[in-house]
């Protein structure tokens, strides 16, 4: 059986969408985690890290329930759009965002924490607004951590299985991703197809991670040469 390129397109679209949203969502969360002195901050940090230890099926189950017509959120979405979020591409995006959140937020927060606070204070004494400081000082000095976070959430979304299966099911062109395709092929004894698909997924993920680590290494070398 030939490789199903549709699942590749869908998976890449999903990974791009999720990484982009995680960039927008993760930066402020990470910035807050890095700078906040709120005493209950550790609870927020624990919540963000939860998907790392939680079995994907557990996370997927809760997302499914939360998106379904029994929950207020699900009912609100149905009243808005006329259909349920579960078993749709949007639902898949929501589940994947939750699942990959720590892979974006933790590298972002680590990078922000490493920025010298005196630089942030200096920027303020020079009249810069907090947003300008964030844009011109904090983000450029955290670039390596931000790239790492995006790449990790991209790769992580590419390869997820449990959450997708629970939330999205297996609808070709809508929610069938590469990992589910591979599972299907193995179930129906199409080992050759599974092998090819798995190999391509492996190569894409490897290339992506190699690119990120290579870029970070080059950036580090540039720093030390200067």
């Amino acid at each position: 059986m030939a490789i199903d390129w549709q699942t590749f397109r869908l998976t890449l679209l999903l990974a791009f969408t999720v990484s982009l949203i995680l960039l927008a969502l993760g930066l402020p969360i990470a910035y807050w985690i890095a700078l906040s002195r709120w005493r209950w901050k550790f609870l927020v940090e624990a919540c963000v890290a939860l998907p790392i230890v939680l079995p994907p099926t557990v996370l997927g189950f809760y997302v499914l329930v939360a998106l379904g017509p029994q929950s207020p959120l699900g009912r609100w979405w149905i009243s808005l759009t006329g259909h349920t979020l579960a078993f749709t591409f949007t639902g898949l995006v929501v589940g994947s965002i939750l699942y990959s959140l720590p892979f974006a937020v933790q590298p972002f927060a680590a990078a922000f924490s490493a920025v010298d606070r005196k630089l942030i204070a200096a920027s303020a004494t020079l009249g810069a607004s907090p947003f300008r400081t964030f844009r011109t000082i904090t983000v450029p000095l955290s670039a390596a951590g931000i790239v790492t976070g995006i790449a990790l959430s991209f790769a992580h979304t590419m390869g997820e299985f449990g959450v997708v299966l629970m939330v999205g099911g297996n609808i070709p062109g809508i929610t069938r991703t590469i990992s589910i395709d591979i599972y299907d092929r193995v179930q129906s004894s199409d080992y050759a197809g599974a092998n090819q698909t798995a190999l391509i997924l492996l190569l894409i993920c490897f290339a992506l991670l190699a690119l990120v680590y290579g870029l970070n290494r080059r950036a580090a070398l540039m720093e030390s040469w200067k």
Partner: protein
Amino acid sequence: MTEIDSVNAGSAPSGPRGAGPLRCDIGKRLVSRSSDFTLRLAFEIWPGFTIVFGGSGAGKTTLLDCIAGIMTPDEGAIDIGTRFLFHSDRKINLPIRDRRCGYVFQSLALFPHLTVQQNVSYGLAHLTTEERSRRTAAILEAFRIAPLARRRARDISGGESQRVALARTLVTDPELLLLDEPLAALDRPTKAQILDDLREWNRTHGIPVLYVTHSREEVFALGERVIVLDAGRIVAEGTPHEVLSAPQMETVAQLAGFENIFDAVVDAVRPERGTMTCQIAGEAGGILLETPLVRGGVGASLRVGIRAGDILLATTPPTGLSARNIIPGRIQSMEQHDVMVSAQVKSRVVMEVHLTLAARDSLELAPGKEVWLVIKTHSCHLMQRP
């Protein structure tokens, strides 16, 4: 505050820009697991340089952070001229960026990923591009860093970084300048040159400058006025000469570099000569020192401070000297620090004496050698005993 007026009368700049005095009356308690520190002080400073002098942990940086808005005091008020930066009762607490306080940090805090030029023009974002580059070019020229303009801040030397940090702050025309040991890491000639540049700059700008240091040299080079901090409080203020040459408190004396500090009791007073004799506790009844006359009669408890560099050593009993205190003793140990020799001389008390290498060699001074300590009356500084 007549004293402040007189101190500044001669040096008050004539420029029209002077923003007015900085008034600060604040309290701030910092509690951590290992320490409980309280800053509680009030002062008023006028345009010109005021040195904040004190040992580590005295609260110097905390004070600057409170003024700049990086830390919020628990209570009190801070204002420049008629503008409140902070007022706890009126709930005023201007954000850092609206305070117009230039602040040069001890670590300098240059933005490492930006060029020297980008660093210096960072605080001018509100101006037109033209005006911004004009001002940047002018200050780069004035601080002799124009050739570095395109280099990244992380690539320049320590002395260069210090100039860039000063230029970056001064170019914004602050109404108050806070300098936290900005020259600590520099060699002497570079330091002197930067101090000159700074002074030159303030001749035309005339703003209050709070300059934190623990270097005596910088105190005398820059200060028109000194505030001495110890454990979060002001323990002395005045001109550098008043505060450091004739300190009234032992904490100040240690900061001012009195290597020898002794408990003493007034033994006799001679008002007609302007002197008195003090008994210094030590072995075999201690020693008697002639000191300048201060208030307090016979029996009063005082402390005497003597700088190690003010004591002379003789290898034979000296005669025909004006110095009134000649004390026999024996060299206990000697240590060389750079080009100076520090000797511990044992008499009935142990005194530290500083000598040149040449003096040590020509007198063949060595541990065990018998010597006479020679101390002028006015080298004995009297202080209150805490």
